[in-house]
């Protein structure tokens, strides 16, 4: 599901969940008369395709018949998605129409209902607390695929190339296997139970890993077989979906799918501010930056402690920061593309994990501003405020995990001048801070703040950048963890 995809922050997982969603609704059907795109002109190939047709047609019959699927106009699904021990299960309601309109309602454990919907024109999402936003084309496509309950009669178009593979045995069951190739070249293996004719297993190679989906607990709903239990595996992640109810052809009010009119203006304004920020701050030029070397001084104004700091960055997200403070000695933090690490004279060496690692990777991303909207899909427009002699427009940005913070932009320059957010402080610390950015200077067409002031009731830290060099040669060895 799109939601699960964003939580995973992994493109690979995205694909797994798309595959899985094909099973949450209905199962694609390969029409019996479709011709493979590149069928070899030999009898063996014709026989292979005939066998595939038999398998698929049998599956289609087991589902309830293509004529039933063709009559479907609306679908309502209610399921519970579990992400593993210790993680809260999520109640999910999905409504969809045969015209392609849809609405997913996820009950987030902390922030309540998250709606993702498409009314035929706008694909949008909203949570009362976290904000709203438009879905990206990729997100929309995934959602759309997930509720394409008529997919079985379109499968020929989805998978132009089909191949019969040798039978496989899974959990003691011998299964018929076909390999399907979509128009983008993506391959999926489907496994059918020869006893029932139903598809019970899917495999897809995603990067170096194999994603699998298992279907069970088939029940007939209004004449159509639905898997009421789906388990998806990818790497260490296991997603368990239990269907609670399915209802077909219960007409849905179009209002359910429509973007609320009250949000249109705010959505447009948020988009305008973010677009202007990217354009005027020269963020587009970040694409040309391969490395960055920054020298500066950090001063904790509350204690008078001054720390010399140097930072090395290299695309995509290699990072090293060294600090040298009197009385404390040297501290380093880095990310070498695999490991987030920290070392200090006083604390020794450690690796990072969880939110701290995510913060490290996010902060290490040279093109971070370009990804702001993708990383924070939910937004709220805040009231414009006067700040000295300038006016600020604020946008509250959020991920599905929660608020990322309030970000304020100068209405004249559209530079990001303030962020009210949280920072991870060590493996298990979090501080609420206000970061003020000032003294913007043009560095290779990018406006960078040369002064950043971090404020928290316990401290006030000012970072003054002394020099920035971009596209200087940096060896990957610079970022390797230091253990001594």
């Amino acid at each position, binding site marked *: 599901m799109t939601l699960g995809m964003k939580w995973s922050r992994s493109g690979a997982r995205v694909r797994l969940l798309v595959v899985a969603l094909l099973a949450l609704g209905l199962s694609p059907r390969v029409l019996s008369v479709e011709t493979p795109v590149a069928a070899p002109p030999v009898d063996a190939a014709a026989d292979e395709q005939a066998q595939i047709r038999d398998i698929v047609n049998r599956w289609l019959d087991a589902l309830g018949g293509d004529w039933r699927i063709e009559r479907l106009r609306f679908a309502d699904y209610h399921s519970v998605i579990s992400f593993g021990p210790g993680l809260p299960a999520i109640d999910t309601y999905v409504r969809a129409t045969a015209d392609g309109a849809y609405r997913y309602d996820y009950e987030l454990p902390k922030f309540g209902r998250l709606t993702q919907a498409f009314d035929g024109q706008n694909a949008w999402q909203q949570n009362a607390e976290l904000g709203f936003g438009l879905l990206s084309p990729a997100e929309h496509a995934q959602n759309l695929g997930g509720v394409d309950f008529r997919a079985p009669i379109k499968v020929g178009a989805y998978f132009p190339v089909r191949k019969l593979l040798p039978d496989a045995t899974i959990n003691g069951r011998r299964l018929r296997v076909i390999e399907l190739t979509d128009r983008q070249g993506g391959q999926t293996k489907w496994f059918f139970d020869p006893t029932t004719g139903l598809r019970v297993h899917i495999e897809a190679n995603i990067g170096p890993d194999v994603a699998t989906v298992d279907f069970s607990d088939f029940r007939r709903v209004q004449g159509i077989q639905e898997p009421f239990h789906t388990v998806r595996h990818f790497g260490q992640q296991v997603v368990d979906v239990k269907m609670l109810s399915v209802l077909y052809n219960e007409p849905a009010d179009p209002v359910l799918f429509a973007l609320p009119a009250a949000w249109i203006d705010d959505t447009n304004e948020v988009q305008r501010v973010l677009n202007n920020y990217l354009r005027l701050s020269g963020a587009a030029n970040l694409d040309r930056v391969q490395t960055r070397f920054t020298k500066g001084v*950090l001063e*904790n104004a*509350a*204690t*008078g*402690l*001054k*720390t010399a*700091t140097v*930072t090395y960055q290299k695309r995509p997200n290699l*990072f090293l*920061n060294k*600090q040298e*403070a*009197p*009385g*404390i*000695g040297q*501290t380093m*933090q880095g990310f070498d593309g695999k490991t987030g690490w*920290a070392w*200090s*004279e*006083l*604390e*020794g*060496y*450690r690796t990072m994990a969880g939110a*701290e690692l995510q*913060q*490290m990777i996010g*902060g*290490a991303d040279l093109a971070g501003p370009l990804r702001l909207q993708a990383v924070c899909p939910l937004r709220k427009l805040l009231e414009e405020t006067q700040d000295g002699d300038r006016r600020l427009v604020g946008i509250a940005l959020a991920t599905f995990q929660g608020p990322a913070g309030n970000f304020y932009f100068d209405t004249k320059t559209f530079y990001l001048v303030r962020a009210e957010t*949280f*920072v*991870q*402080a*060590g*493996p*298990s*610390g*979090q*501080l*609420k*801070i206000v*970061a003020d950015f000032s003294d913007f200077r043009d560095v290779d067409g990018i406006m960078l703040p040369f002064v*950043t002031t*971090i404020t*928290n*009731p*316990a*401290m006030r*830290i000012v*970072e003054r950048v002394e020099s920035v060099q971009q596209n200087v040669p940096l060896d990957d060895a610079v970022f390797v963890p230091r*253990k001594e």
Partner: protein
Amino acid sequence: MPKIGALLLLLGVGLLRAEEAPAAAPPPADDWVDKREKTFATVWETVNESYYDATFGGVDWLAVREKYHGDLAAVADNDGLRRLLQRMLGELRRTHFAIMPREAAVFTPGERVRIGTTGVEVAYVENVVAIAGIKAGSAAAHLDLHPGDTIRRIDDRDIGVMGDYLKQAGCSPARCGLYLTQFISSRLRSAVGTKVTLTVRGLDGAERSVELTCEANEGPWSEPMGDFPSMPVECTVRHLPDRIDYLHFNIFARPIMKEVKSTLKSVPVDGALVIDLRGNPGGISIMASGISGWLSDHVFSMGTMHMRQGHIGYTVSPQTSAFLGPVAVLIDSGSASTSEIMAAGLQESGRARIFGEASPGAALPSQMKTLPTGDLLQYAVADVQTPKGVLIEGRGVTPDQAVKPSLADLAAGRDPVLDAAQQWLEAVRRHPAPSPTGQPRNQK
């Protein structure tokens, strides 16, 4: 902002300091009235903005301001201002809120004459402050002072009267011990050349007065950290019988780290370790978890400091070649702040057994700031809870095995706390408790 995150971790200095103003404070300058007002405002506002508890523990901090600001106009000099500000900070009834005279602080090598040494070490024993030891080679070594002597007066201050006052104020015995030993120690660390008169009573009941002269601290000093001044640093390593290594340091500061690491790396795999935190008032608080990383093969939490808007954990990260054998930690009423954080964390995690007397419960991570008068304001910005949620401030650490030395022990050169720790270390190695994996931890 990963680079900011690193600096945030260094905000807590858990050190309890008590410095007395030198006898001759500089006279007020012409801009005294303005400076007095600004200093008062800085102290009040700093606490107002940074105090870790937005409710100030029930104290009406605004009313406190009005109360003491009313007296400000009558304050004629810096000594008076220090007393007024200290009384105001005292309304919070928390440790780590103090005004440090700039004249007593050391920021440059040239200023090291401001903190001398007499060679006399004191401890709170049998509810009195007594001489615990006299450094060999110090001037005091040749005087009529002996371990076990009870300190009755230091110069014109009657220690008995001070103790009674503290008890009447509701201080616990550990807190009484902390305050009294810190007061006497600060006098015994007066500027080089200062003469200090100690009136002591020997075990025979006879009183005598001895004049001491503060000498220069010739050993290593810590570097100043911003507004946090430099201090003398001592680290003692001894190899006791039966492969037991003993480690003592007087403060958690950077210079001791090298020696600590070296010691922890060199303890025999089948050996044992004593970490003596008695009389250690604290220091850089993350060193508690840093040192503990050399005692662990797994990640664990020693506690969390809670600030007004956020929290930072004392997370122990295991270090290569960590010592995994049995560890005993010694504490007393002089083990404050970072010492308590470390002792509590090691105790609660089961990594060490604690011996000695209860610590004073003075464990608030703090910072120092220079005031307009030049004096230093120490102010707490966080509270510390153990992983089980126990507040250390006001409670302290209760030893697993209480051992109370006597004056006679001091006089005889016995250390029953260390003896008890050694006995336990020997016993536990003879009969190790089964580990969850079935493998002795120190064999990994």
